[in-house]
């Protein structure tokens, strides 16, 4: 999913993910955040997630996955260790990404 997503489409995807996750995840998320996601989602776009669509990195955009990661960090992690593990993983990807981009720039230079 490389195409650029607008915010309402991202909300539609996160909304679909929350619908699928249900219970525990929804209860841990503040009502105001849920309201924003539900109210500002692109309902038309959301139709593409029917009951047989698996929700994974192939069907969800990277923006929606990033928003799910932020929800996990802010509300869903049960322990500090769990939160730290995810933060470390995300930082590692940042470092990897910057390392990959530096040599290319150097070559050009």
């Amino acid at each position: 999913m490389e195409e650029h997503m607008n915010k309402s489409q991202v909300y539609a995807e996160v909304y679909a993910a929350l619908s699928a996750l249900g219970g525990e995840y929804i209860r841990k998320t503040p009502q105001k955040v849920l309201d924003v996601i539900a109210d500002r989602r692109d309902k038309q776009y959301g139709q593409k997630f029917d009951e047989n669509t698996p929700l994974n990195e192939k069907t969800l955009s990277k923006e929606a996955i990033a928003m799910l990661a932020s929800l996990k960090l802010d509300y869903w992690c049960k322990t500090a260790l769990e939160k730290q593990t995810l933060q470390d993983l995300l930082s590692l990807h940042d470092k990897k990404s910057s390392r990959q981009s530096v040599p290319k720039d150097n070559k050009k230079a």
Partner: protein
Amino acid sequence: MENDELIKLPISLTVAVCHELKDKHGIDKGNFGGLRFTNEELAKITELDLEGPRAGDLKDIHKLFPNLRGLSIKNRTIDNEYHYINEIRSIKQQDVWSIERCKNLERLSITNQEFISEIDLGKLPKLFDVNISNNASLATIDGIDKLSELFSLACYGNEWLQEIKNLDKAIVQNKDNFSKVKLDVQLFPKAIGYNHLDGTYNQEAFDALEQEKHIVKWCEFLRHDNFKGDKNVEIDTYNMCKMHNKACQILHDILPKNSSKFDTIVAVERYLAENVTYDDDTFKSRHTKSVAGKDDKATARVVQYFDGANSAYCCLVDNNCVCEGYARGEQYLLGLKGIQAKTVNCVGGKDNLRLFDQKNADNYIDNFFHFTLSSNAHSIIRIDDYYGLYSDPCWNATHYQRGDKSMPYTLLTKEDICKDHTLSSREAGYDKVPSDYKFFPQRVKASLEKSIRHNALFKNTQASDVKAQRAALQQDVMGIVRGANGRTYE
């Protein structure tokens, strides 16, 4: 400008509101078509009795009916299992979230809704009359222990129900309030707070059930029969305890300490194959079994026992049942060891008529009834906690008792079980008809949940992306609450 304030409701709500306005307030709105209501009229509504609402009908019900005290949602068609998904009427999970925001609700009945997966009763603290039954996909009921004024509780036939937290605590704290309790047989271990790891249970909850034995009933909702109505097995607490004790004794006798899931499943199925015989008499007499004369003491205590041969009770206590009894008996035994399983309806035999071929879709129901009448309506078990594999304890038993002790129908994949069983459309997953409502089955939920828990979903996500999305969300949330929720964002 007045027209701007008129509200149009979905037809199911319109019908219920019109009846309510006419019966209780003498307001006759005339024909239903194109009707609109004022906020004042909607504020008069305290009870809603909805028949066959569709997905999304209850959106914003908490805003529309601020004085709602009683809500009943039902659907007359029971045997949804064999219907295509777009033929089934049901509210969906988003409707349940709206119901959970009706803070003044005192009576709630949700029956036979196919597409709801969970409900948090704790959000409705004023509830005193609750009926959550026969909702095929309902997996979780939360917050029941937060209800302190319950006098009527019914919860049965929710075939996928895996979690009903603190049911034992709810029973203890409401024991002096109860006037009617009807729970599923499979919920008995949860009702007494049974711990599958050490076999202990909540004595106080057990005593409360004993104390209220005249008003507590245990039932198994079996399949709906268009000719004979619901096949409902109902037993009292005495017989429920008898069945539970027998089940515990069986597990004690057949399982070594710390046996693995696999060993437990195989041992349980072997026990059933060795000890439970097929009830041919009941099968030949079109499933109208009477237990009279078989065990007078038990019969006297059984409150209502129509079609009991399909029950876990007949399987475990009488050692004599038909196919569904084997499956339900096994489900109960495995449940006591903390292994989730589900009884699955099917037809014994291969799908030679190609019922699920899209070319036959229009005649699906006719074909299906033709098939069931000419063949064998049957039940097997799907063991969710063991890779979702299937077993057919009934056919295993009949093979075993004829001398073939190989237990050929134990822990088969869906592909293998389908070689000589035709699964219902719900179970087979052939119900992939496009629909405009959203419902995510357990398999989608489980897969997504797992990938979030293990961070597999985030394997290519960068911290900077997360920060950007958090900021975007923050911006929108702050736009609404201006930081009133107290949360700070980086």
